């Protein structure tokens, strides 16, 4: 095939795909700045005639979006910090500390990945109900404080740490905690950033469990709040698009800023098929 024509074909195809993929997000942004009713015109307007922040004001003043946003931020940050601590400790132990039954225990954890999370949801709800934690942030945070994926990711990375370095520190008389905090943690930094981005995005986007565990509006996270709003305001497209923007923009920005780390986690997490 003619190489120059080939260049054109490939790049036009890529540009078309990208345009098609980004269009819904572009339109979400555009409609969110339209005046009430403007979005329900024919033909569908591509850009707002008179851009306005009306929908955003409405969302934060009357629809409780500020509350949901704060809740999402609290829940996702807490999950990220706590699970980072648990997963890093465990991942490091699986990679570098010796104990009887290590490989077997790790294999069991990996094997547990075949069980879909939803199988645990009903008993988990009852458990939390009997201890009085339903409709609290703890109900969403506690079960997410450790994950097999996170442990796996840290273990894969920590395995490449030079063992001599740890031995040298031990010979110098450093305790295991000091070695972990002062030698291991700094070396694990890249994978910790990866895991943090991954965990935060997952927690922010999570829907089914928060929908079950958070039964009152005061504790709704953004996805739960938005789903509930969308059932009330089906026809108010502008308002709904503004709600989608508020929910999606933080994670998109975070992804764009830390893309390199995120994609590495994605590839690392899938190599051991």
């Amino acid at each position: 095939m003619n190489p120059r024509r080939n260049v054109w074909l490939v790049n036009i195809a890529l540009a078309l795909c990208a345009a098609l993929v980004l269009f819904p997000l572009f339109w979400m942004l555009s409609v969110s700045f339209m005046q009430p009713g403007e979005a329900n015109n024919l033909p569908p307007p591509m850009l707002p005639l008179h851009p306005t922040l009306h929908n955003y004001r409405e969302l934060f003043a009357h629809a409780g979006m500020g509350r949901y946003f704060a809740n999402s931020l609290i829940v996702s940050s807490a999950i990220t910090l706590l699970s980072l601590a648990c997963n890093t400790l465990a991942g490091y132990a699986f990679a570098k500390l010796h104990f009887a039954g290590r490989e077997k225990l790790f294999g069991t954890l990996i094997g547990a990945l075949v069980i879909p999370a939803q199988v645990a949801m009903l008993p988990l709800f009852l458990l939390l109900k009997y201890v009085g934690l339903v409709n609290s942030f703890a109900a969403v945070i506690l079960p997410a404080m450790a994950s097999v994926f996170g442990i796996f990711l840290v273990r894969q990375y920590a395995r490449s740490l030079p063992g001599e370095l740890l031995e040298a520190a031990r010979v110098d008389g450093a305790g295991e905690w000091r070695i972990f905090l002062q030698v291991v943690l700094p070396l694990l930094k890249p994978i910790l950033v990866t895991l943090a981005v991954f965990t935060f995005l997952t927690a922010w986007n999570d829907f089914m469990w928060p929908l079950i565990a958070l039964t009152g509006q005061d504790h709704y996270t953004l996805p739960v709040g938005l789903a509930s709003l969308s059932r009330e305001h089906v026809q108010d497209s502008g308002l709904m698009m503004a709600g989608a923007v508020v929910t999606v923009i933080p994670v998109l920005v975070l992804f764009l800023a830390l893309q390199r780390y995120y994609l590495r986690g994605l590839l690392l997490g899938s190599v051991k098929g």
Partner: protein
Amino acid sequence: MNRAAVAWLFLTPALLVLGVFFLLPVLAGLGLSLTDYDIYALANLHNLRFVGLANYWELLHRPLFWAALGHTLYFVLVGVPLSMAASLGTALLLNSQAAKLKPLFRTALFAPVVTTVVAVAVIWRYLFNTQFGVVNFVLAHLGIGPIDWLGDPHWAMPMIILFAVWKNFGYNMIILLAGLQAIPADLYEAARIDGASPWRQFRHITLPALGPILLMVGILTVSGYFQLFAEPYVITEGGPLQSTVSVLYLMYNEGFKWWNMGTASAVAFLLFVIMFAATALMWRFGGGREEPA
């Protein structure tokens, strides 16, 4: 302190969380599925009775369970191949030597993956609105009459499949792209010298080299697609005429709307068994060699 004791100390927080909030509930769920736990038992545990396999038996005789399973299988059987085709197609384009601005295109195509399902589902519902949605507007220009995407039981599931493909294909695209980049360039060089056409190169070099990755990605996608829930919950609320009620949607309604926790647990375990069987079959017939992870 003894080295092994330290290891267990480091493991304790994570194992405690996974044990209490995952392993224990899974086992309890199996027990729960053998009881008639309902709203009366929720109020007073004395109303709880052991019913053996009655929940499973009753579900297997309920048309709505089979309908939900059918909708879910429809979603998996059509959605997964479409997703994989989109992932592979875009990965091939991005891997082509002719492609310019690769990082930019890659980011653009990947963007939907990091978005929130609920938020983009809200957008989707608007795009596919029968009266003033862009999709019907464009179709009208092509001479295709208005399709009632949200109201016609024949069209609701295809719309949800399109949504899932759009939302998810970027994930596998990145993995397949890495797989493509790992294929040695001299294989293609040798094929070109032998006069192999691009199609034959694809057929005899690319596909066999990608085989194991395709199988793994396929298995992961199938198990992900079996867990269909948020999309119908937000876009169609299971309708029209229950045509988008998935297995998990049924579990959610049974458990958290009607408080039939026993039946809902049985639904969850049936889904688990079906997913396990489907992925194990793929592994077996896909030529997987090692133990599946």
